[in-house]
């Protein structure tokens, strides 16, 4: 456990030193979301309808941005090989890295999303659902994305390839995440969507670090 915390602390410290990376993803999210009303028009009824989809797709793309740097710097300076050799199980260390990735890219999105939601004329209830859905969904994005990041580690054209591998796997998260808000706006209640999202998260917490670890071992062979 202490090993996980040490890894998280280390990655957060590194992220603090390279603030620009974190901020780039965050501003990317803000700009993409703000561009849509400019492209579509300021009609509030329409904006309210498309808000869930836009916020979620933008969140998906924003988490993708940092993903290729999840393991690459550690791979370059040999830290990753040290991790493989360390007595602590690699799976735990990788889980720590994924948590740190979520804290630096996912959590800021969760905190920022309601502010952007106001741009789309969403009411307080919908904003609440948005935050809860993102809180469940963004860790899922980090977990699934980590598998892709590990598979494309050190591979030619890794960045583009990563999005090709990971984005189709993000579809269920997108559907249930955006669906939760839509269901709430339509007055159907978001409970079903949110519990499915939670179930997916539980499944991913169980399997994703394992698959990521296996992929990393292959990459380091």
């Amino acid at each position: 456990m202490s090993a996980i915390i040490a890894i998280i602390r280390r990655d957060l410290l590194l992220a603090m030193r390279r603030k620009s990376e974190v901020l780039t993803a965050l501003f990317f999210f803000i700009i993409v979301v703000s561009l849509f009303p400019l492209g579509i028009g300021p009609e509030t009824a329409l904006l309210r309808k498309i808000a869930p989809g836009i916020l979620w797709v933008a969140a998906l793309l924003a988490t993708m941005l940092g993903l290729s740097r999840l393991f690459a710097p550690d791979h370059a300076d040999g830290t990753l090989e040290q991790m493989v050799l360390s007595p602590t199980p690699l799976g735990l260390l990788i889980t720590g890295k994924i948590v740190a990735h979520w804290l630096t890219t996912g959590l800021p999105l969760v905190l920022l999303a309601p502010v952007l939601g106001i741009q789309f004329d969403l009411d307080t209830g919908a904003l609440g659902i948005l935050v809860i859905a993102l809180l469940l969904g963004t860790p899922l994005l980090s977990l699934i994305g980590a598998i892709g990041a590990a598979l494309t580690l050190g591979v030619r054209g890794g960045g583009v390839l990563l999005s090709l591998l990971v984005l189709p796997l993000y579809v269920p998260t997108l559907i249930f995440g955006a669906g939760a808000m839509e269901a709430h706006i339509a007055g159907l209640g978001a409970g079903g969507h949110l519990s499915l999202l939670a179930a997916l998260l539980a499944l991913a917490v169980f399997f994703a670090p394992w698959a990521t670890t296996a992929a990393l071992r292959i990459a380091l062979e």
Partner: protein
Amino acid sequence: MNNSHKIIHWFKYASPQSFYPLAGKLIPWFWALAAVFAGIGLWITFFAAPTDAQQGEGYRIIFIHVPAAWMSMFIYMVMAAWAGLGLALNTRLSGMMAQALAPTGAIMAFLSLWTGALWGKPMWGAWWVWDARLTSALILFFLYIGFIALQAAIDDPRRADKAGAILALVGVVNVPIIYFSVKWWNTLHQGASVSLMKAPTMAATMLWGMLIMSLAFWMYSIAVALTRVRAIILEREAHTEWVKELAEVKGVTP
């Protein structure tokens, strides 16, 4: 004693060296079966199956659409099974089989999308409808493309095999989730739509036609995958003794 002997016998064929000639012997048989089934299937498609009361002649597309869609899903599962086998037992052949199957699966997925669109235009009035089946077929196509792209990007074949295997296994876990989520999304947004398969009276001839066409597609897939795996074996084992001793390499006409 006897049992272990059998296992060794099976593993013999798991080596590329002994699988290469075996595949060579099997390929013509699968081509022949594919041709026979395709002949019967096409005859049923165009001559035995009567005109549909509601869909006219346009429904004949389903005789290739449904087999292509089935094969695209089935091949993905077989590919993942080979991949898993390769990871578990570390056999060289498994990765090559997975690699050989992927393009065929992608083509089947593409064909199911293409024929679905051509069926949808006259029936739904649109080339593309965000129907649950079509949407998950599209995502399956993306998964195939991702698998092929990942393997193409990695130079070391052993690493490509293993990385592809993990991706295929992650994909196979996700395929049902994706299908379920798309279906859920679909019912939320537009209610149940007309389905290709939901012909109210599926006549026995139609069922037979679809079944035989599926067999044709199945035999075709095996034949083409075996043909491709032979090429892959030669590429990967180019510098081994047994490849150099092959009759077709020596230039001796067999």
